């Protein structure tokens, strides 16, 4: 690494660029030429250039798994106990995320120039895109969980604004509220997790938290609770199982927004959070994460089978793919989950923008209004097909690269923990479902015969500003940008766990098995040379790595050194076993996933191209199932009658209490006051004012009487004068 890290030094400017264009566009956008879209474009392109510069400096020049650029300044200090730092943290993950966010954001900006053309709120749309870019870039650059939370809420806000962009539509304003409130539920858990960590460690910075946890300040159940709390935030933002209902509704927003926020970047923030806080999750927390992801990916994939709205299908496939990422992270596939994040951002943004292009052309979202569009929209068709091949997991495409890793890690986990085999079987089956429903979408939309001739005749290829982003994203859906030189797997390696096993359980065999995925990661990590650590790179992972070994041995200290040595030998053996299993599992998983994806694609061809099986007959044969899936497992209805009904009842009770009791008390006080005031008022009018008036009247009366004496006639005065002298004289004489 050299010392001229020009772009790294100015990394903090990246989020400030879109922030500035937000302020320019929101206040002056309407008066600028072209309604200010070029301001947003210019800033985001500059941010992209800087992000690529950082990517070059970190990934290409740095090329070390431990690379870390960390700047921090004290921001807030209260009574020497509460410290919050402000700063930025750039490591390999951040560098990749910066490029993903700025690249997709730039392409979406470009696409929106065509897509939103002529919208009355054109400038506001670009302002919102800018504030979103600012928040998301701030989120990935945060160096403490405190700032991560701030930006986390900011992306939630921009998501709300953009889903409800066409708020004149009732459905859009409902969808934005639903997204916001559902996210609040998850964020409550997130905040609780942050507070548990802060209460135990007293710090917010990622590195400091890891160091404190490794030092044993937070262990056991409380640490599991903290991890699950953090995961709750991810559940909300990444639309995982209980809280996934908002994401499909979020498709009410403009399609470029769906591509940027609800497919590529913001929904991946939850996955990013899990990756960022990876060292503090305990084995139990990982199990919760893995099962949540598995349930999510299965439910969403089955729902996607029965949807006809092109954006809804893509939305459910997004939920399903997010489930894959979460599941991958949960089973210990750190690299796999984050790789899927990066590849998914590319191909899903490609498909969403492709769907936007299709919607723009035919003015309908129902795939059965389309058909044969490949002849009318060749660029959209080819790029969409590439994206579909990627998501289905066909070799040489990016989805294969990452999904295969997830399935391999899931299988390895299942082989080491046989009672959790569902964590492998369900995702593997769902991979087949994914291939099927995505190819169903492609075949119905682009192949066959035009179903609606009026719409078909009207359809046309989109302008260049809309086609260009599709081409760029399609190129990123190939595997070679990620597999070249194996850089992704080399640079994104699992950080060592900071979890300290509780003193009582440190010995037993069971917790060691539970911790298997963690151990597996550590085993892999040992393979990378730690000597390549950059000179000024801080490596908390290393400190954290040393600590658990020591603490794990601590309970054994009473039994003497011999036994401690024995444990470490046993652990080494175990690690070797894990490494072997992982290797075998990845081989098996690759062939199985190929077979499953192939089956899914073939089935789609058989049904929708060759027509050997009539989908209508299948639908009729299992109508209850279809109805169940088409109604999205009745999640919305379930929430309607349970949670929403409960909240509404509580709200009504509160309203009654407020109106009758609280308002009653207030009104009572008011009437008492009124009475008292009336008496005081009368006293004031009669007594106080009466006294004042009496004085005034006396003065007037006295004046009226006495003024008669002042005649102004000189002989009167002379007469009184003489009279006075006479009286004085008489008084003196007698």
């Amino acid at each position, binding site marked *: 690494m050299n010392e001229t890290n020009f772009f790294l030094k100015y990394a903090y400017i990246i989020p400030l660029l879109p922030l500035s264009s937000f302020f320019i566009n929101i206040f002056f956008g309407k008066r600028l030429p072209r309604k200010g879209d070029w301001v947003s474009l210019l800033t985001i392109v500059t941010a992209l250039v800087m992000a690529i510069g950082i990517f070059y400096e970190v990934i290409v020049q740095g090329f070390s798994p431990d690379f870390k650029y960390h700047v921090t300044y004290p921001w807030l200090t209260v009574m020497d106990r509460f410290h919050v730092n402000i700063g930025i943290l750039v490591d390999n993950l951040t560098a990749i995320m910066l490029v993903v966010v700025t690249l997709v954001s730039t392409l979406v900006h470009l696409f929106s120039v065509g897509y939103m053309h002529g919208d009355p709120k054109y400038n506001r749309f670009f302002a919102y895109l800018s504030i979103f870019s600012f928040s998301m870039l701030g989120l990935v650059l945060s160096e403490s969980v405190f700032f991560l939370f701030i930006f986390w809420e900011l992306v939630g806000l921009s998501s709300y604004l953009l889903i409800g962009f066409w708020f004149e539509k009732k459905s859009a304003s409902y969808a934005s509220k639903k997204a916001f409130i559902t996210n609040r539920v998850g964020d409550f858990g997130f905040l609780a997790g942050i507070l548990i960590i802060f209460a135990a460690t007293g710090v917010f910075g990622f590195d400091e938290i890891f160091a404190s946890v490794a030092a044993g300040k937070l262990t056991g159940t409380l640490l599991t609770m903290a991890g699950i709390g953090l995961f709750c935030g991810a559940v909300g933002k990444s639309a995982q199982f209980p809280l996934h209902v908002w994401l499909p509704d979020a498709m009410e927003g403009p399609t470029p927004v769906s591509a940027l926020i609800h497919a590529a970047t913001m929904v991946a923030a939850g996955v990013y959070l899990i990756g960022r806080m990876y060292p503090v999750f305990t084995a139990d927390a990982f199990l919760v994460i893995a099962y949540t992801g598995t349930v999510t990916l299965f439910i969403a994939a089955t729902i996607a089978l029965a949807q006809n709205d092109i954006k809804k299908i893509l939305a459910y496939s997004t939920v399903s793919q997010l489930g894959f990422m979460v599941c991958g992270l949960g089973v210990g596939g750190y690299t796999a989950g984050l790789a899927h994040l990066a590849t998914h951002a590319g191909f899903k943004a490609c498909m969403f923008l492709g769907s936007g292009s299709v919607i723009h052309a035919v003015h309908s979202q129902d795939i059965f209004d389309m058909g044969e569009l490949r002849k009318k929209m060749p660029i959209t068709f080819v790029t969409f097909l590439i994206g579909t091949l990627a998501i289905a997991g066909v070799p040489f495409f990016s989805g294969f690269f990452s999904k295969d890793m997830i399935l391999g890690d899931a299988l390895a986990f299942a082989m080491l923990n046989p009672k959790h085999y569902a964590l492998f079987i369900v995702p593997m089956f769902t991979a087949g479902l994914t291939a099927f429903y995505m190819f169903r979408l492609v075949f119905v939309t682009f192949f066959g015969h035009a179903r609606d001739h009026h719409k078909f005749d009207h359809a046309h290829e989109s302008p260049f500003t809309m086609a260009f982003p599709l081409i760029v994203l399609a190129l990123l859906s190939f595997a070679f940008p990620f597999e070249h030189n194996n850089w992704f797997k080399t640079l994104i390696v699992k950080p060592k766990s900071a979890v300290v096993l509780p003193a009582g359980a440190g010995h037993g065999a069971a917790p060691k098995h539970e911790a298997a995925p963690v151990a597996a990661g550590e085993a892999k990590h040992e393979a990378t040379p730690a000597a390549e650590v950059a000179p000024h790179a801080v490596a908390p992972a290393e400190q954290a790595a040393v600590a658990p070994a020591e603490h794990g041995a601590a309970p054994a200290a009473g039994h003497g050194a011999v036994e401690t040595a024995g444990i470490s030998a046993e652990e080494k053996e175990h690690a070797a076993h894990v490494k072997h299993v992982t290797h075998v599992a990845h081989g098996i998983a690759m062939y199985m996933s190929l077979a499953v994806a192939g089956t899914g694609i073939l089935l789609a061809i058989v049904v929708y191209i060759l027509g050997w099986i009539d989908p209508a007959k299948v639908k009729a044969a299992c109508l209850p199932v279809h109805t169940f899936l088409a109604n999205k497992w009745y999640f919305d209805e379930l929430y309607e009658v349970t949670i929403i009904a409960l909240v509404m009842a509580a709200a009504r009770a509160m309203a009654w209490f407020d109106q009758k009791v609280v308002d009653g008390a207030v009104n009572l006080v008011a009437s008492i006051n009124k009475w008292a005031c009336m008496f005081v008022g009368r006293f004031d009018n009669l007594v106080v004012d009466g006294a004042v008036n009496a004085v005034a009247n006396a003065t007037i009366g006295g004046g009226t009487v006495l003024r008669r004496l002042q005649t102004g006639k000189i*002989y009167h005065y002379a007469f009184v004068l003489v009279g006075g002298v006479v009286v004085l004289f008489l008084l003196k004489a007698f």
Partner: protein
Amino acid sequence: MSLDKFLVVSAALFCCGLYTIMTRRNGVALLMGVELILNAANINFVAFSHYLGKVMGGQIFAVFVIVIAAAEAAVALSIFLRLFATAGSVEVDTADSLKN
């Protein structure tokens, strides 16, 4: 001649002046009454000075009074001139516009 005779003349003169002031409405007549009173006072000054004091203080005072009376007469007559020009008469009862 004794002092009391001068005082009687002086008192008679004062009473004439006082009577004039109390009975007449004409401004010029009032001024004449005031002159009578002043001269009554002058007679007193000179008489007391002659019989009681060995210095000329009373006489000098009388000269002062005459001078002041001349000035006063000049001011008062000019006021009456203006009064006559505006009100058409020098009856002092009619000059009551400040009061009413």
